[in-house]
């Protein structure tokens, strides 16, 4: 896909679509959206749809950052508390690191 070839309204449509899809627990899509449309939103000379694109880009970036934070907190908590949670912790574990000899 070449963004520079798309008419402005299509860009907006695409950006909005990406944002919406990102709502299905897909923060990675948000991150891609934010990076992909960053230039469109902030570096290009102003055009009609830019304001909305900007909005979606900012929301996507914020959403992705929030998810990263949530995930980081979860992983930290889980790794610190796994032993304390007993069987629950074990059943949630996918890989338990082996000890070293």
């Amino acid at each position, binding site marked *: *896909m*070449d963004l520079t*070839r798309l008419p402005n309204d299509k860009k907006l449509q695409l950006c909005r679509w990406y944002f919406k899809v990102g709502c*299905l627990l897909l923060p990675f899509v948000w991150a891609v959206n934010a990076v992909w449309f960053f230039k469109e939103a902030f570096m290009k000379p102003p055009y009609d749809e830019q304001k909305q694109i900007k909005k979606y880009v900012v929301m996507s970036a914020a959403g992705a950052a929030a998810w990263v934070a949530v995930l980081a907190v979860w*992983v930290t908590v889980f790794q610190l508390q796994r032993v304390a949670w007993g069987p629950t912790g074990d059943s*949630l*574990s*996918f*890989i338990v*690191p082996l000890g070293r000899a």
Partner: protein
Amino acid sequence: MSDTGSESEIAEATEHTALMDGHIAEARPDREIAERIARKRKTKSDNQQSYGSVDRTESGGSGAASSSASNPPPPQPPADAQMEELELKYGARHVIKLFVPVTLCMLVVVATISSINFYSVKDVYLAYTPFHEESPYAVTKVWNALANSMILLSVIALMTVLLIVLYKKRCYKIIHGWLILSSLMLLFLFSYLYIEEALRAYNIPMDYITLVFVMWNFGGMGMIVIHWKGPLRLQQAYLIFIAALMALVFIKYLPEWTTWAVLAVISIWDLIAVLTPKGPLRILVETAQERNEPIFPALIYSSTVMYCLAATTPPPPGEPRARELRPLHPHGPFSRSQSPSQGDPTNMPCFSLICRGREGADGAGGAGDAAGFDAAWQARAGQQRRLRVDSSQPPRYTTRLERQPQPPPPQQQQQLDDEEKGVKLGLGDFIFYSVLVGKASSYGDWNTTLACFVAILIGLCLTLLLLAILKKALPALPISITFGLIFYFATRCVVKPFADALAAEQVFI
């Protein structure tokens, strides 16, 4: 969650199909042109001039342009040689552009093989390879390997033919379904296995919640970017990763000597499928050109360069194992189509072709580099031009054919240039290149690995050179794989013992 996910994916897929159609429509004129050009070029070199003339016509009013174009815009003879040279130069740039993805793909495979044991341990084999080479006798092993590779080849051939038939009958839905299924399998199932083994090898703790979340994001984005729209870079990255995964699957699940036999057999098949008049891949490419459609994006990696190389894609191997893995096939821009079947391993057809590329849609990344056409200009001009071409073309076309020598209408050509410059390499080519290098590296000898790597790149260069000269779709596997095999066995059997002996005797040369 996963349910909604799959549903949404399906929705995406449909949407995607619709989009594809649009895309196809756009591309039509180009394809025809390209095809025509290719034919003409063969007969006459005049056509090349058209590049030069194109600009003028284009800039002129569309009506005028078309009329002038249709009547023979006299080609300028002197331009030929120059054009040729220019093309070769661009070609060189494109070669380098293909080097990067091919190298990356091989790197991923080699890095994985050398850090994760799982992929080099033989325990389970694909259902397609019933003979496991367990006999101590060389003759039996050879026989097993040949039998296995013939079975695998027939599966691949069957899949390819199936694909062609579907394509001929215009069952796009089925093909897309197949491709989507394949990529789903690769993106989720095989990625899951890969992540599991990688985490285990590096001893990294992980919980299921994070895992599911990450997989969902990774796979979801992959489906969007491969089958719908997304940044070109990301699409390329996904395709490379998919090809690498597929190659790892082959390395892991094919018996030792079968792997080598398969490589040899596949490259011969590639040769036949692309170059024979009735070869399946050739039919595929020609049909696509006739219809002015891009070959399925999931199968081809496109650099958006001037020529396209489509390669063959091998079928994904199924896996007989308890885990049910079914491979899929990618696609690719870089590469081609396949489908996995359920239960059994499926195969994908292989394609190997290199064609003059034109793929407008993806071109963004490439366009910039490519040959210096101004992207913005293209964007502006593209649509109108396209429309015009459509309407005007058919008539012109005929005339021209009769007249024969006439160069394709310049506009079209230009369009071609603009939009479709790119070399395309089939994902299948990526896969088999990586299989060769990965297999070589699985014995732990870096000299051999490097030798194979260099051999493949040289082969690729030669293929691209031929592409520039012959201007038609070419198989990308035969030269590279032949070189690779020769280098591998020569290094392993001759150079390495020789180097070891020298080192042992402390002789320096």
